[in-house]
Each structure stands twice: as C-alpha cells, then as structure tokens.
C-alpha cells in the first residue's frame, strides 16, 4: 500500500518528469505568445490608419488573408512532415521531395507552355485548385499503392522512386521553360517560388476544410503513430497492421502536402525545418504533444520570415527562397552531425 504514495513518480507518460511537463507548457506558451504577437504585428505594423479606425480594419482584413494562409501552410507542412518522418522512420527527408512539387511545377509550366501567358490564369480558380490537389493525391496514391502494398512493399525504394519521378518531371519542366519567352518565364517563376502572395483568398474555402479533415484524421491516429515510430517489427508485434497504417498516414500526408503546395507553391525545406525544431522544442515522442508544437512552430517560422522580409528587407515575394536557405542550412548542419539513419 505504500506503493500508492510513490506511484506518481513511476509513470510512463510522454513527459515523464515534472520538469519536462513544465518545460513543455513553457514552450507551448512561448510559441503561442509569439504567434499572437507576430499575427498582430503582420496586421498592425506599418498600417497607415490609426489603430481601431475603420480604415485600419480594412487594411488589416486584407492582411488577415495572408495570416490565414500562413496558418494553413504551417499546419499542413508541420504535421505532414512529422507524420511522414515517423512512418518512414527517417528524420532527414521531407514529403515535398516525393514528387509533389515537381508535379506542381510541371502543371504550372505546361499551362504556360501550351497556353502562353493566359495559361497562368487558366490554372487559377477554386475548381482548378481542387483539381490540382486531386492530381497530387492521385499521384501519391498510385505511387504508394504500387510500391508499398503486397509482400514486396518497400518503403525506401518507394521514397527513391518518388524522388526519381520528381527528377524526371523536373527535366520535362526545365525543357519547356527554356522555350518560353522571357516575359512568360517571369510570370511563371512568380508562381513557382513559394510565396504567400500566390494564395488566393477564395482557395481558403477549400483548403481549410481539406486540411482540417486530413489533420483531424491524423490526430485520431496519433497513438498508432507513436507505435509506428518504433519500426515495422515492433509495431506488428504490438498489433498495429503496419502496412495498412503506413498507407493511411502517407495518404493523409499527401493531402496536406497537396493543399499546401497548391496554395503557395513549393517550399521544400519548410517542413524539414519545422519538424526538426518541433522535435527539439517538444522533446517527446508523443504525437499528441508534437502536433500542436509543429503547427505553432510552422506558423511562427512563416509569419516571422514574412514579417522580417516585408518590414525589414521590403521583399515579401521571396519568402520561399529565404525559408529554403535557412532550412537547407539546417539540413546540412544536421546531416554532418554524427547519427544513425
């Protein structure tokens, strides 16, 4: 009976010690605070109208669209990358290299190539947005169904095949791009570099529900994700049907990636950056604790980059490039540390 008094000390939850629980709450609070501050900063900074006036809110409302886009993209990229890295048992890859971005580039390039400058308009619109998302998810489903199912299903080969197909699509895009006139090319490039400005407010009506459904379904799988992280054999031993579960998670991931990529364009290393920061910040294996941190981190990174670029460097357009370089730098430093893959 004396056990009861010391029982709280021995517990196997995701945050085993009181210190780790305090740390986690502090991290979440700080991130949330940062998110609110940045959100307010994006709305109010440099707003020519006095705070609270009608004109202020008109401008703020326009900027709020950007905020919403960043919230969606941060959510999609953060959660998708964490889940993807869990099921692939590999912390140095991002789902974006699996051909999603190459497909996006190919679709956009073909539109301009075949239709000229008018092509840019032809691929805009909610219907087209949805079509593009479906195309990407369909591509992912075919790839996973082909290479992950059956007895010979092999995760690593699936990853490599995805990357190779991406490279082939990239070559086709590059070829079409070199035949474009410089003005068409500039128009196209604006779409091909990840930018918050790419997003149309009307897309949010589709993007938010899609992201919410996919994210919610992933949330319902978080406990199984914790088991999948232990590898195939341990997962099967614990009664999780590894193959089916992996496919489900990867498909949901592909929905999130498609929503994000079609919204703002390719952001190859955002997911990597966010996931890596989230692991450090959350310091737990439990996906119920990781997901909120990943979302908040994703938003803070995006909004922070946006804010700094817009108000310090006056170059909001190249947010994608900045994130690529920072994320890429982190990637390099990460792989040069000793580790096991």
């Amino acid at each position: 009976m004396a056990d009861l008094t010391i029982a709280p000390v021995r517990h196997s939850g995701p945050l085993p010690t009181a210190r780790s629980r305090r740390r986690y709450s502090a991290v979440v609070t700080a991130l949330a605070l940062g998110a609110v501050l940045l959100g307010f900063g994006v709305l109010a900074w440099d707003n020519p109208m006095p705070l609270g006036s009608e004109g202020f809110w008109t401008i703020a409302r326009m900027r709020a669209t950007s905020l919403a886009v960043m919230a969606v993209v941060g959510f999609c990229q953060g959660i998708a990358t964490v889940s993807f890295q869990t099921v692939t048992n590999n912390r140095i890859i991002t789902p974006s290299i699996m051909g999603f971005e190459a497909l996006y580039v190919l679709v956009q390039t073909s539109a301009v190539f075949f239709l000229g400058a008018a092509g840019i308009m032809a691929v805009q619109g909610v219907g087209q947005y949805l079509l593009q998302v479906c195309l990407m998810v369909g591509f992912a489903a075919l790839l996973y169904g082909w290479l992950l199912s059956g007895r010979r299903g092999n995760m690593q080969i699936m990853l490599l095949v995805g990357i190779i197909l991406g490279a082939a699509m990239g070559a086709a895009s590059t070829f079409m791009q070199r035949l474009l006139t410089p003005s068409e090319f500039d128009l196209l490039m604006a779409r091909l570099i990840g930018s918050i400005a790419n997003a149309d407010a009307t897309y949010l009506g589709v993007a938010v529900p899609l992201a919410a459904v996919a994210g919610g379904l992933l949330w319902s799988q978080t406990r199984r994700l914790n088991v999948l992280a232990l590898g195939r054999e341990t997962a099967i031993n614990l009664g999780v049907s590894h193959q089916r579960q992996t496919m489900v998670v990867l498909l949901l991931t592909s929905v999130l990636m498609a929503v994000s990529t079609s919204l703002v364009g390719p952001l190859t290393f955002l997911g990597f950056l966010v996931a890596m920061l989230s692991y450090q910040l959350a310091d737990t294996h439990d996906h119920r604790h990781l997901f909120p941190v990943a979302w908040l981190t994703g938003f803070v990174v995006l909004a922070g980059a946006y804010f700094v670029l817009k108000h310090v460097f006056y170059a909001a357009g190249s947010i994608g490039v900045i994130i690529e370089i920072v994320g890429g730098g982190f990637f390099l430093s990460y792989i040069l540390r000793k580790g096991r893959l």
Partner: protein
Amino acid sequence: MTALTRSHAQPPASPPAAEPRPRPARGRLFTWPLLIGLVITAGLVVLSLFVGVYDVFGAEDGSEMFAITRVPRTIALVLSGAAMAMSGLVMQQLTQNRFVEPTTTGTTEWAGLGLLLTMVLVPEASLLVKMTVAVITAFIGTMVFFAFLRRVTLRSSVIVPIVGMMLGAVVGAFSTYIALSTNMLQSMGIWFAGSFTSVLRGQYEPLWVVVAVAVGVFIAADRFTIAGLGQEVATNVGLNYNRVVLLGTGLIAIATGVVTVVVGNLPFLGLVVPNLVSLFRGDDLRSNLPWVCLVGISVVTVCDIIGRVIIMPFEVPASTILAMIGAVVFLGLLLRKRNHG
C-alpha cells in the same frame, strides 16, 4: 546489345582442358565483344557527325560548318559521355553503393553553384576561371557528401541517394536564390540543362582534360575498389585510405566540373551506365572500365541524336532525354533490386 549479352557468356565458356589451365584473377581487357562494342560506338559517333538540320554536303560552306559545329559537338559527346559514366563508376566503387553518382550526391549542383557564383561575381571571367571554380565547388560538395557517409551509420543503401538528392536540392535552392536576385534564372536553367547545341570550335577544347581523368581512373582503379571496402581494409593492405579518397574525389570533381561548365548537367548517366555494364559483365572494375566508357559514349550520343531528330528543326537538349531514359532505367534497376531482395 547482342555484343553485351555474348560477353556475359564468354568467361565460363572456356572448355575443360586436359591439363588444368591457369585461372587468371581477372578477364582479359580486349576481347571480341569489346571490339564489336567499339565498332557500334564508332558507328554512332559517325552517325552523329552527319545528323542535323544543316546539310553539310550540299551547302557551299558545308565542310567549314562541319568543322566548326559537327566535329566539336561529336567530340564533346564522346568526352563528356565517357567522363560522366566513369565518374559514376568511381563514386560507386568508393562508396560501395550502386545508386551513387554525381546527380544523386549533389556534386552537379555544387558545380553549378560555383559556375553561377563566378558568372555573378566576375561576369567577364574566362572559361578557364569558371571551370576552375566549378571544379573546386564540385570537390567541396563531394567531400561534404563523403564526410556525411563516414559519420553516419546507414541502415539501407537506398538511403544514400535520398540524402544526396536532398543535399543537391539544398544547393539548388541556394543557386536559385542567387539567380533570382540577379535576374539570371532562365539563363541558368538553359546553362545547366546539358545540351550539345552550343558546342562550337573554340569552346569545347577544355573537355580534353577528361582524357587525363580517364587515364587516372585506369591507373588507380584497383585502389578505388580497395578503398571502397573501408578504411580498415585499405590500411590493412597498406593503402593510404584518405589519399585514395581524395584522389577519387578530385578526379570526379574535375570531370563533373568541366562537363557542367562546357555542356551542362547530364543526369543519371553515371548511374545508369555502370549498372547496366555490371548487369551484363559482373563487377571487375578494371575490365569494365572500357565498357563503361563505350556505353557512356553510346548513350549520350543516342540521346543527342534523338534530341536532334525528334522535333526537327528544333532540338531537345540531350539532358532532357537522358533524364527521361535515365529515370526509366533507374526505376528498372530499383524494382529489380526489390524483386531480388
């Protein structure tokens, strides 16, 4: 192809002689199949000389055009094809991984970055300067990749190219950023897409350096094989491991850097050719070397001829066709690996 298959049947075909014949450790270098392969390759090369929009026989200045464009172009095909195929072979030997070559380790992207940096910082730099910088960055990039391989314990050979291509994507993102901020994106795309269209007399000559690389590879072939077995094995047989790796990296960097500057990117060539050759001939590096050169030359030449003919009077860059064919062959190799364990 018949030549290739027949060579496969040759080594075991030696009839059981009355008295035991000495069993050589390696096959003979020059065999009938190799001569046949040589003839086929020569045929392709000659064909390349006479394919094109310009009628080199009918027109008045035909012979002059022949000397200015066709001959340099064909020589460039031969040299760069052999160079990239051998680079791939050396990298595969050093890393003992079949999926490694300049495209899947980021080497090409590093060379491109060096080239771009010179173009931006010193626009009036001579071809030689550009090449030197590209070779140096290619060297650094390859060393980064090797450093990564040595530090990290990998579970699967397929992870290696995944990491390498991520690495390439990071460097590529950085190049994109520079090109974007200096308005050189489209010209960069054209420059990097390996094409032999613009190879003219007076511009391709640096490619001859590749011959020296080929000789170096021939001489050091066995050392690369031993170094590929690891530092302990190499030291055990009295080989300075680090020096061999540096030598190999240097040769690869020279070949990749020079080809990138003069011709552009030739994706997957270094991967597909050595794998095809070893599929038919097994894995003896030295006796495979001439085959790798020949097949490399043939593949590039065929791609270039297809590119010239397919949408006459326009040209598709050889790299585009190579990327498509290369991706298909790569996929075939991967699926073969999957099916055979």
